C-alpha cells in the first residue's frame, strides 16, 4: 500500500514535534451528548463568523466624521455630502461587490453571538453548572457576555447614523449622571464635551481591536478550563457521573457535530440575511446634532435599559453635594445591580447551601425551586422592560395613549415578576424530584471496563 503525500508529511511533522500522543488525547476527549451543550459552541461559531466578516468590513470602513462627497451607485446619496464613516458604509453597501452580504452576515451573526451566550448562560444557571469547581468559568462567561454586548454596542455606533448619534448622546448622559466623578469620566471617554470627533475613532478602536482581543483571550481561557475540568454532564442511567465523564469522543463524531453546526449556523445566518435586510443604513440617514427619530433604539440586548428609561417616573434630587437622578439609577445602578447579582450568585448559593465535593452532575431546573423562581422573576422583569421600550410603537399600533401604555408597565414591572417567580418556584417545589437519587453508587464502567 502506497503512502500518501499527506501521511508522509504528517509523519515527518510528528517526528519533529511529537504530536501524536497528545493528539490522541485530544481525539479521545469526551463531549456530553446533549443538545444543550452545543449552545456555547454556537457562540464560538458565530464569533468566528463575526471576526472573519469584520476583517473584510474593516478594509473599507473610515472612522471619521468629516464630510466627504459621495459619488457612487446609491441613488439616494449620489452627490451628497456625508460624514466619512457614513459614506464608507454606503460605499460598502452599494459599491463594493459582496460588501452588502458581509454587512448583513456580520450584523446577524453578532446577534446570534449575544443571543447564544445568553441562552447558554441560562442553561448554565438553571442546571447549576456554575457550582464548584466551575465558578471561575462562570465569571469568565459573564465577562464574555459583557464584552459581546460591548461589541454590538460599539458596532452600532460605527455607522454614525441617527441611531448611533442618539445612542452616543444617551451614553454621554449616563456617564455625566454618575455622582461626583461622572462629568470628568464623560470627558475622558468622549474626549471633551459632546460631540467630539474623537469619540467615533475611540469606538472604532474598541470595536475592532480591544473588545475582540478580549473576547478571543477569554474564550481561550474558557475552553482551556473546560478541557482541564472536563464538562459537566446530565445524570447517566448506568455511569456515576461524579467520577466519569460519558459521551462522544472528539474524533470523529464531536468533530462532525461541531462542523455540521458551523455549516448550519452559516446557512441560518445567510437565510436570515436574505429574508431581513439587516443592513438598514439607507433608512436612517447620517447623524446631525438636533436630529432625532422614533427608531433611535439600542440593540435588543440593551432594550431593557431603554424601557426602564421610559417607564420609571421622574426623580432628581441633590444629596451630599451631588445629584441622584433617574438617568443615573437606570443607566448605571440597574445594569450594575443585575450583573453584580449574576457575578455573585454562585457564591450566594454556596453560602446558603454549602457544598464541599466537586459538582459534576447537573441538576434539573425544577429540582431547585428557589433558583428556578429567581430565574423567572428576573427574566420576566427584563422582558417587561424590553417590551416597555416599544411603548410608543404599541400605543400607535393599538390606538391608545402612550401614557396609558407607560402606566401599564409602571404597574406590571414591580408586580408581575414577583408573581411569575413565585408561581415558578411553587410549581418546582410541588414537583417530584426529576433527577433525584443521582448520587447512588453505580458504575457500569467499573463493572465491565471493556463493554
Amino acid at each position, binding site marked *: 500500500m502506497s503512502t500518501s503525500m499527506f501521511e508522509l508529511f504528517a509523519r515527518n511533522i510528528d517526528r519533529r514535534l511529537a504530536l501524536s500522543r497528545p493528539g490522541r488525547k485530544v481525539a*479521545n476527549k*469526551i463531549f456530553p451528548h446533549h443538545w444543550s451543550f452545543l449552545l456555547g459552541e454556537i457562540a464560538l461559531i458565530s464569533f468566528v463568523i463575526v471576526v472573519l466578516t469584520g476583517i473584510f468590513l474593516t478594509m473599507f470602513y473610515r472612522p471619521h466624521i468629516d464630510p466627504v462627497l459621495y459619488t457612487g451607485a446609491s441613488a439616494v446619496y449620489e452627490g451628497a455630502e456625508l460624514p466619512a464613516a457614513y459614506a464608507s458604509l454606503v460605499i460598502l453597501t452599494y459599491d463594493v*461587490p*459582496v460588501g452588502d*452580504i458581509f454587512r448583513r452576515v456580520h450584523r446577524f451573526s453578532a446577534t446570534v453571538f449575544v443571543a447564544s451566550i445568553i441562552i447558554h448562560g441560562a442553561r448554565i444557571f438553571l442546571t447549576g453548572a456554575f457550582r464548584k469547581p466551575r465558578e471561575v468559568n462562570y465569571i469568565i462567561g459573564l465577562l464574555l457576555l459583557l464584552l459581546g454586548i460591548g461589541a454590538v454596542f460599539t458596532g452600532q455606533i460605527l455607522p454614525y447614523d441617527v441611531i448611533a448619534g*442618539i445612542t452616543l*448622546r*444617551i451614553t*454621554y*448622559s449616563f456617564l*455625566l*449622571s454618575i455622582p*461626583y466623578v*461622572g*462629568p*470628568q469620566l464623560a470627558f*475622558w*471617554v468622549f474626549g*471633551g464635551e*459632546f460631540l467630539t470627533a474623537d469619540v467615533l475613532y475611540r469606538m472604532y478602536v474598541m470595536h475592532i481591536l480591544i473588545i475582540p482581543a478580549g473576547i478571543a483571550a477569554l474564550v481561550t481561557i474558557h475552553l482551556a478550563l473546560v478541557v*482541564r*475540568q472536563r464538562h459537566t454532564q446530565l445524570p447517566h442511567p448506568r455511569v456515576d457521573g*461524579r467520577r*466519569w465523564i*460519558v*459521551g*462522544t469522543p472528539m474524533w*470523529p*463524531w464531536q468533530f462532525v457535530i461541531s462542523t*455540521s453546526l458551523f*455549516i448550519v449556523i452559516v*446557512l441560518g445566518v*445567510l437565510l436570515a440575511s*436574505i429574508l431581513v435586510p439587516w443592513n438598514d443604513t439607507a433608512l436612517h440617514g447620517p447623524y446631525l*446634532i*438636533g*436630529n*432625532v427619530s*422614533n427608531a*433611535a433604539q439600542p440593540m435588543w440586548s440593551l432594550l431593557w435599559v431603554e424601557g426602564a428609561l*421610559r417607564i420609571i*417616573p*421622574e*426623580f432628581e434630587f441633590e444629596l451630599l453635594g*451631588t*445629584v441622584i*437622578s*433617574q*438617568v*443615573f439609577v437606570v443607566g448605571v445602578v440597574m445594569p450594575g445591580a443585575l450583573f453584580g447579582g449574576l457575578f455573585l450568585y454562585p457564591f450566594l448559593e454556596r453560602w446558603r447551601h454549602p457544598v464541599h465535593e*466537586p459538582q*459534576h452532575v447537573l441538576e434539573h431546573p425544577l429540582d431547585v425551586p428557589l433558583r428556578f423562581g429567581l430565574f423567572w422573576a428576573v427574566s420576566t422583569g427584563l422582558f417587561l422592560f424590553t417590551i416597555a421600550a416599544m*411603548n*410608543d410603537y404599541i400605543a400607535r399600533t393599538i390606538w391608545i395613549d*402612550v401614557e396609558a401604555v*407607560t402606566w401599564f408597565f409602571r404597574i406590571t414591572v414591580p408586580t408581575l415578576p414577583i408573581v411569575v417567580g413565585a408561581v415558578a418556584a411553587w410549581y418546582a417545589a410541588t414537583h417530584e424530584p426529576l433527577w433525584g437519587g443521582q448520587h447512588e453508587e453505580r458504575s*457500569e*464502567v467499573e463493572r465491565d471496563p*471493556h*463493554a
Partner: protein
Amino acid sequence: VTSDDEGFRILHRRVPEDVRANDTTVVGASAITVVAVVVFVVAVVLDWEVELQMAALAVAALAFLVGFRRYFAAAYPQIEAAEPRPDLEVEVEPIREIMPMSRRRVLTRTLAAAAGAIGLASLVPIASLGPRYRPPVTGWGPGVRLRSDKGELLRPEDIPDAGVAMVWPDGVPREEHGTVILIRLTREPESPTRLEWVVDGGLVAYSKVCTHAGCPVGLYRPADNALYCPCHQAQFDAARGSIPIFGPASRPLPQLPLDVDDEGYLVATGDFEELVGPPRGRV
C-alpha cells in the same frame, strides 16, 4: 478508536452498514456544492441581486453539509465512551524558602505596595484622554441672532401660527448645547413662562436638549402646546415654561431670553439661566 489512552473506555459502539448508495450521495452533494459556488461567483461578477448571491452560498453550504455527514457516517462507528474525571484537588509541596515567616510577611506586603504604586502610575495616562471638566457653555449671549437649521436668520414673521424652527446661535451651527426650538404657541403663555422673554405675543424659545437623557425634544403638538421627546416620551408644556407634564424628565427645558433687534431679527438677550440638558453628577 482504541482504548490505549489510560482510563478511556468504550461503552457502546455501533458499526454502520457498508452501502454504496452512500458514496453516490457524497459525490452528488459535492457536485452540487461546486455548481452553487460557480453560480455565486457568476452572480457577483454579473452583479445580480445580493439575495441571489447569498442564496447560492446557502445552497453550497447545505449541499456540503449533506456530503460531509454522509462521508463520516460510512467511515467511522458511532461510539459512546467514558473517561475518568481528573482529581482537581491535588496538593503540591511548595518550593521551600529559607526566610523566616515573620520577616517574609512584612517584606511581601512592602513589595506588593510598591508594585501597586507602579500600577497606579499606569492610570495616569487616562487624564490625557480628555480635557478637565467644565460646565457647558453655549454660543448664546446678548444680541446673538437666531439662525435656523436651513441656514437663515429669522424674523418673528417667519414663524407661522403653530410653527416651529430648530435654531442655533448665529455662527455656531449644529452645536449641541446651543440647540434651541423656537415655537409660536397656539395660546397665551402663562407663568412660569418668563413672559418678558416672549416675543410677538406667542413666540418662545427653549433649549432643545431634553433634561432627562439629552435627546433632542423633537416634536411639538400644537393642540396642547406640548413638546414631546421621541426617545423616552418626556412631555413639556411649552405654554407654561415647559414644565414636565409626563414621563421621565424632572426639570423644565431652559427658556432662552428672546428679543428683536433694530433690524427686525430675532436675537437672544443672554445665555440660558439654568443647566442645559440632563443632570450632571457634579453641580
